[in-house]
């Protein structure tokens, strides 16, 4: 109810529909039980185990040193956030995660919008172009990243450098060394812009053709039409794209793993990659679990915030 007030809508009284819930409850519970138990086993048990593990100093390689250290792992992470030297690279990873996610989402949205506007018009070969635009999203992430590293960005054998040399611009930058963050963002955008295009295209196609026609009759130029009709209509779809995009992009590790291994320095280490480095490569189960939990807390805060936006947007469209 509070939400209704928040949304600035008057509460409308509705006739209560009376259903005898008791009749359904027992059967219903049994019917959802398998799904519920499955969910419990695959999500909640690991969560509890992670909570427990996070209180240990525990390197799998050194079982004799396993020791309960209370909240020391969390204190270490906080010290990594506050200390200048950032000994566990946690602050660097947090910053990188924000940089990668925000910039990849924003650029993908803008590019996706342009793609969608392009293929929303009829022109010869439109189907081919549409398929080609979607393709990066369908390429296996690892294969895509390997292609970027070896075929595109390599200073000796890469296409980008070859084009620059052929056009007499001289050698280009060594992408993955001099511009590592930008390179990762380029790979992420390449992969996620098509995804945004799909969402925005769906939005564009839901615009009533009559509205467009009316605008054209009134003398609107294509630019007027895009700014005055398409964009406002797409607003909600862009919100949806931003939400889903950030959920997916925040956990991207393939490109990083394949191209830079988180380096040079810590310039491309994001949070999931740091958790992998700590827990899997470094066998430090306790600290890895603690990192995972902090990431969870941060994700929850961000997700709640973003979901509220989506919630509001759906309510605004369909009423409450």
């Amino acid at each position, binding site marked *: 109810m*509070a*939400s209704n007030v928040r949304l600035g809508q008057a509460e409308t009284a509705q006739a209560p529909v009376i259903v005898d819930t008791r009749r359904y409850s027992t059967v219903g519970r049994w019917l959802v039980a398998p799904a519920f138990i499955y969910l419990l086993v*695959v*999500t909640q048990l*690991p*969560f509890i185990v*992670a909570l427990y*593990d*996070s209180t240990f100093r525990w*390197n*799998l*390689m*050194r079982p004799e*040193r396993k020791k309960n250290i209370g909240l020391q792992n969390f204190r270490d992470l906080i010290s990594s956030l506050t200390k200048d*030297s950032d*000994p566990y690279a946690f602050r660097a990873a947090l910053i990188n995660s924000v940089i990668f996610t925000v910039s990849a989402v924003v650029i993908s949205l803008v590019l996706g919008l342009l793609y969608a506007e392009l293929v929303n018009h009829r022109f010869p070969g439109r189907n081919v172009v549409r398929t080609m635009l979607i393709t990066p999203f369908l390429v296996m992430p*690892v294969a895509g990243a390997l292609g970027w*590293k070896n075929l595109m960005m*390599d*200073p*000796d*054998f890469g296409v980008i450098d070859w084009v620059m040399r052929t056009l007499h611009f001289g050698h280009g930058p*060594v992408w*993955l*060394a*001099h511009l590592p963050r930008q390179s990762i963002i380029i790979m992420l955008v390449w992969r996620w812009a098509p995804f945004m295009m799909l969402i925005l295209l769906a939005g564009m196609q839901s615009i009533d053709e009559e509205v467009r026609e009316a605008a054209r009759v009134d003398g609107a130029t294509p630019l007027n039409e895009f700014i005055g009709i398409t964009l406002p209509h797409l607003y909600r779809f862009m919100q949806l794209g931003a939400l889903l995009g950030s959920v997916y992009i925040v*956990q991207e*590790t*393939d490109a990083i*793993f*394949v*191209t*830079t*291994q988180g*380096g*040079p*320095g*810590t310039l491309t*280490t994001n949070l*999931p*990659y740091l*958790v*992998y*480095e*700590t*827990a899997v490569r*470094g066998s*430090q189960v306790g600290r*890895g*679990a603690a990192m*995972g939990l902090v*990431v*969870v807390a941060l*994700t*929850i805060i961000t*997700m*709640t915030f973003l*979901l*509220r936006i989506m*919630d509001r947007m759906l309510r605004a469209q369909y009423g409450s």
Partner: protein
Amino acid sequence: MDRTINRRTVLKGAGALAAGAAVVSPFGAALAQDASPAASPAASPMASPGASPVAIAPDPSITGELNVAMVANPQMVALQKLQPQFQEAYPNIKLNLLVLPENEVRDRIRTDVSTQAGQFDVVTIGMFEAADYAKQGWTMDVGTPLSSDPNYDYNDIFPAFVSALSGEDGKLYAAPFYGESSMLYYRKDLFEAAGLTMPDKPTWDDVGNFAKTLHKPDETYGIALRALPGWGEFGAPLTSVINAFGGRWFDEDWKSQLASEESAAAIKFYTDLLINYGQPSATTSGFTECENLFVQGKAAMWYDATSAADLLGDPQLNPQAANTGFAYQPMEKIGSGWLWAWAFAVEKGTQHSDAALAFVKWATSKNYVQTVASQLGWGQVPSGVRASTYADPGYKEYAKGFSDLVLSIIQAQDPTKCCVDPVPYKGLQFVGVPEFVTLGDSVTKELANVIAGNEKIDDALGKIDEMANQWAQDNGYQ
């Protein structure tokens, strides 16, 4: 009300999602991207008529089902092809081979062994794990049964490997399958054109001067060296250079020595060499990338594992083969030591130790080398661990450009003496304790940043020194 439900669902869902990620790897399949110095090139199938293997009489008395996890290097893939031969010799052993890319299988093996989960009976492990696993009681003594079989010819194995793979009790806990050290590859034609001569035993100063002369960025780079972050990628050649310059990672009290005069000089030398005369893609170059550069004629020199020699010497795989020269690993104060082997260990918890031992014996025996040579050619033989391989006329003919050199290099390695000054660990191109992975990874990341030009070497030296001390404290060494 909807909001409440929403939030609760989100809380649970998100919590569980990320908690899952904390326990398991955040991404499923690992990749063929290499993480150890032992990746080998695809060997060529150049069959030459060698001595044919001794036929083993089938032994049906040993039974059981064996799960073997192996790194997917070419030598292991060759073993996979020869599985029928094993089945002929041991018809009642059911052999399941799991061959996966290195990063994936390493993580799985490490988890399986350390938790004693019993998923595998036999696993491939590397040099720095053997002694430690033995100490934890996770693996079985394989040396005693192997050395008691005269056909196995235990003393044929190079002593350096036996020493490196033995536990503190002196028993062998993993049988070496194939091994490698390091050497310097160079282009004879470019050296000749520039009027340079490669000494038999070059120093790093020589290498630096050669690189300077031969560096022509539009045609060939002076030298190709690894700088892809990772303890087993960049970490391996870097550590061997640090040791050669008289430096070390730690002193006997596990105080970091990375910023000591000698270590700092070595690290500066390595990074400067790459910045000034190396390949521009250094920070993404591991073994494979460097090998590519050299094979494509883009590098005048390359310092790396001896296992690349098989490929570089083969005209079908390397267009520069005729011009490829092989030289001793460069020295400075001492030699740049390097020793690595993939070895088979038997997990303590196995239900079929007889079958497991039979497999290990079969795969690491002298006879197996002959089997590979006759079935697949000398190029696919697991080399580097047995003196008899280097005495075999078939292999000598196949590897005439480098086999004597490789032999003399490997024989000179002593994994207990890496450095001028004493150190509290074993291992030449790595610090031989299992926790080194994290330290090696983060130090090489930091130094890659120097090579990329984003950080000053002096700042980086301070940082890695602090990292090493922090690591030693965290892991209870200091």
